[in-house]
């Protein structure tokens, strides 16, 4: 009987030891996986009004070299209550995070969002330049 228990304990211990030796995947302060990807860009951009409908009059122009996003919004858009949506390259993340409505009403001081690559080594600030349709 003792022999049986010994074998059982040993069997249970082996996976623990094995798991303990395995190298953990690195995660960042947000609990997101840090990968090997170095790409760092915005692939598409959307801007929604308080009614969750788009306020863009046409597709946003994303310049990955100049690191700007030019977006024209409809006449009469409430710029104080907008929800921006960024689509980023795989594994990248955005700083600051978007947690709710954003005030874009100060057109002379456009907002800047930084894209951080999957390996967290490349950081590129993108400026969101809004113009209102006349």
């Amino acid at each position, binding site marked *: 009987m003792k022999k049986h228990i010994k074998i059982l304990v040993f069997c249970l211990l082996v996976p623990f030891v094995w798991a303990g030796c395995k190298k953990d995947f690195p995660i960042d302060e947000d609990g997101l996986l840090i990968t090997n990807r170095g790409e760092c860009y915005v692939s598409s951009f959307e801007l929604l009004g308080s009614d*969750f409908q788009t306020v863009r*009059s046409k597709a946003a122009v994303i310049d990955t070299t100049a690191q700007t996003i030019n977006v024209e919004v*409809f*006449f009469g858009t*409430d710029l104080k209550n907008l929800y921006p949506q960024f689509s980023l390259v795989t594994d990248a993340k955005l700083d600051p995070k978007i947690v709710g409505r954003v005030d874009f009403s100060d057109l002379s001081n456009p907002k800047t969002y930084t894209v951080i690559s999957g390996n967290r080594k490349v950081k590129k600030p993108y400026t969101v330049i809004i113009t209102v349709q006349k």
Partner: protein
Amino acid sequence: MQNKYFINITFLLAIILLLNACKEEEYAIPETKDALQNDVIKRTLGPNLVGQRIEFAYAMAVPRTRGKLVSAQVEASIEGATGTFLENRSFYTNGSGQDVGVKIGEPSATEGKITKVSFTTDTTAATLRYYYVIPEAARGQTVTFNFTANSSNGETVTYAMGPYQISKMDMKLDLAVRDGAASYISIADMAVYTAANAAANADKIDLVYLHRTTPASFAHSLVSPAADPQYLPGITLPAGVNKSTKVSKAFGLRDQQLARLQFGIFIDDLDFQELNLADAPNFAINMRAESGVWVETADGKYRAYIFVNSVNNTNKSAVISIKRFTLQ
């Protein structure tokens, strides 16, 4: 020794399982209760608004051997407004889905809180609809109902329904607004005024309806009189019309009582209580049919939801419906 016990227990368990499996449950027609019985369902959904109806279906039946139905009555805890009645017809649904009424007595008589129907036909079962028109006195209160049926053998059954909360909201449906004509909207009056009438009610005008074709995204708009003049092109406001009303656009919020469409969405008192329009603008440009705006008046007295039922680009007009909640 241990093994023996184990085998025995397993055997016993197997026998129990077998026995259960062999038992056959035979269907038996449920026996009717030998008494007068009743049941009620509430047919209307959503917030209970003053002036609107709450509809119930009251079913009652007595076994043929015990007699027939004599009378049915409903007692409301708060006297219903004019138009409250108990159907004198028992409805059934025919093969085409139509509700067909069979007359069982004279139309109901309402005395105070009690609405009563006396049966004149010899019947043992009936389902009567009860329509309670919510009176002004019930605003913000709860109301309960007692449904009672009597049979010829002296039996009486009662079914209590409620309590139901009566909303503090007001509702106004299908107000026609038109650019350059009836375009001044008052939340306080829940009405639409022309420029001439608006001058007379200047302190009550909260929004201006207008339609412009340029820019294309202007279209049907609800703009408060104090908004940036670029949102009121070509509008000369009547003297004294100067309120800054907060509005926030909403899309897909098709309240069933306002829209009367298939969507089961209801705006209730709580929505207005929790509404936060602190950062909202004072204009809503490019309103589309079946969209809406949350509104808070400049004096903070009312919050409202204006639903756009339909728009007409040619006539530069729209039909709107309003639900309003009084804050103070």
